[in-house]
Structure formats: C-alpha cells, structure tokens
C-alpha cells in the first residue's frame, strides 16, 4: 500500500483529500504545515506528498525546497494542491521539484487523474 502525506493547514481539506486517497487504496498521514511535514518525512519518507502552498510554519514551496535538499533516501513524489493557480506559481513549483500540480477546488476525478500522471494509480 502506497503512503501519502497530506499537508494542508485546513483540517477540512485534509479530511476530504485523505478520504479520496484512502478510497484509492493509499495509507494517509496528515500534517498541518511544512515544518510538521518535514519532521514526518524525516521519520518515515512517504511515497507521495500532497502539498498546500500557503501555510504557517514553513509554506509549501519552502517545505519542497527543504525536502529536495535533504538526503533521506527515496525521493517522494510531490503534488502541489493549492489555490495559487497562476502560471508563475506553477512554474516556480515545477522548478523547485514538484512532480504535478492540482489547482483547487479539486474533486476525486482530478486527484485520480493526477495520480495517474505520476504513475501512482
């Protein structure tokens, strides 16, 4: 079973995303900001991180840069999931090492399609 870390400061978004991912046979773990997520990755690297952009205590892009600089073994797939839906943000995320990008609002079809893009379903 693949393991996904869902990083978002909204509890509701985390719950919705986790439910969809669990339906798609993922084991999920939640983190409410980048710092908590980085600590979780240091404990056990997930297969994938679903990542919000705007969060307190290390935002999404800071987390991603820190994660890609870590030497923690396997490189997890990182999929941004954010309301920052403009090309400048998307380009910045890809440049920092994001694998895919989900523009909120999302639904199950979008998450499933994006997971297919990165080869996880």
């Amino acid at each position: 079973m693949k393991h996904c870390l869902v990083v978002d400061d909204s509890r509701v978004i985390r719950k919705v995303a986790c439910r969809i991912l669990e339906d798609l046979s993922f084991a999920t773990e939640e983190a409410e900001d980048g710092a908590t997520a980085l600590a979780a990755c240091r404990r056990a690297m997930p297969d994938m991180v679903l990542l919000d952009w705007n969060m307190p205590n290390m935002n999404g892009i800071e987390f991603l840069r820190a994660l890609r600089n870590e030497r923690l073994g396997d490189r997890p797939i990182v999929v941004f999931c954010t309301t920052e839906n403009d090309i400048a943000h998307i380009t910045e995320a890809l440049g920092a090492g994001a694998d895919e990008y989900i523009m909120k609002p999302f639904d199950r079809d979008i998450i499933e399609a994006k997971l297919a893009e990165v080869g996880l379903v």
Partner: protein
Amino acid sequence: MNSKDFAYLSDILRRRSGLLLKQEKAHLVEGRLAPVMRRFGFKDIASMMRELRHGHESLASAVTEAMTINDSAFFRDRKTFEEFRDIVLPELLIQRAAKKRLRIWCAACAAGQEPYSIAMVLNDSKLTAQGWTIDLIATDISSEMVSRAVEGLYSHFEVQRGLPIRRLVSNFTQEGSNWRISEQLRRMVTFRVFNLLDSFGWLAEVDVVFCRNVLMYFDLKTRASVLDRIGEILTPDGSLLLGPAESITGLATEFVQAEHAPGLYYRSKMPPLRRRATA
C-alpha cells in the same frame, strides 16, 4: 416523458445521428432536453415533443445535439496516445517519408480535447519544422461542441483531467480561471460539423482515423456502416483507433486488431510483414 414520446425520440435520434437511445437511459432524457425546451420557449417536454412531430427542423437538430454524448478529456485513455506515438506515427513517418504529408481524422471530437491532444503529440515530434504537412481534421455532429473546440477555452476542471501540468503550462495561456489552447496548436486543427451518417467522400484519403467511444452508442447496422465507410477512406496502410473497450469483431472484416495494442486496428489486407513488425 411518456412511452410514445420516448419511442418517437428514439426513432428521430436513430435516423438523424445513428444514436441508440436505450430504455435504461430514459430517466436522463428530460434533463438533457431541458435547455432545448427553455431555448425554444416550451413550457414542458410534452409540448416540445408535439412540435417535434410537426417537422420543426431547427428543433430536431437541437434535440439531436443535446442527446449526443460530449464527455471527453485530454489524453483520454493514455495508452491510445502511446500507441499512436510509439507504433502508428513512427511507421507512417517511414511510409510517407517521400511525400512528407499525413492526414489524420478525429471523427467525434466533442469540445476538442482529443484533436488537441493529438496536436500536442505531433508537436513533440517537430514534424512541421522538418517539412511535414499535417492535415488534422476534427469533426463532431454538435455545432455547439465544434464552436467550443474552435474557441479552445477550457475550465480548470477540464485541463486537470488527463493533461500533465507541464503540457498545460507550455500549451495554454491563462484567462481568469480558464485556460486557452495556444494559437499554434489551434491552427494545427481544422474543425467541421459533420454527421457520421453522411458521406465521407469529402475526407478523401486519411492515414489515421480516431473514432473512439462513438460506435458504442450506435446500433449494429450503423456501426457496420460507419466502419465500412472508414474502410473506404483509410489508406491501405492506415490505422484506425477505437476506444480500448470497443470491439468490432464480426462487424468489419476489412480491419484486424493489432497485437498487444487494444483499440488499434489495421486494414486486414495490409502486407503481413508490417503487421508482424508492429506486434
């Protein structure tokens, strides 16, 4: 909708578009026809159906369009595009090296996602820069869908179903919350309203036909007729791409399925050497 109106609607759809309206879809009919009813000013479906029986041509056309299936997505059934890129296209580039011309037809393009996906694959190969002429023709029975395809403007939900983010960034521009296909890709596709029951003569010779997830909505006779006419316009070494779940076994003897490539069909009279090479 009462059973007589349903039977009449089924008949008119079959005659005008080949669409087979199944009884189990009856509950969807009123919802699909509600926008037409409002547009033409009818107070209920029954009065619209009465007018339809009087031979109201523009109403019949609008009803037919409303009942056609327009669901699509960029790179829908990814494997089909991989087969096109990795099997069909390389072979044709060898076969047509002297003429440097390819003709590709999307038979039911809906809002344009399929032909634009093909255009992106072709664009990756940089064929135009190498002197190739590509005729990419896309048709649909619905004038509304063809207008949307020409417009090339998609919602943020539509561009997130099947389209990798890097393709979105490199092939679209943002307009508010929507995304518009690049002018370069838009110019690669010629769109036209076309009913698959009509003559295919204007298409002349075509090297590749995409006719995916269309035949399944037709009755057997219409499926066979469409396949026969595709056979008439497809070049002897051309390819037909159907939906991966569609089967034409017993319907068209002029086509044979490629091995290891569900949905990809060749002409059965194609030289056997080439068929083996693609397996």
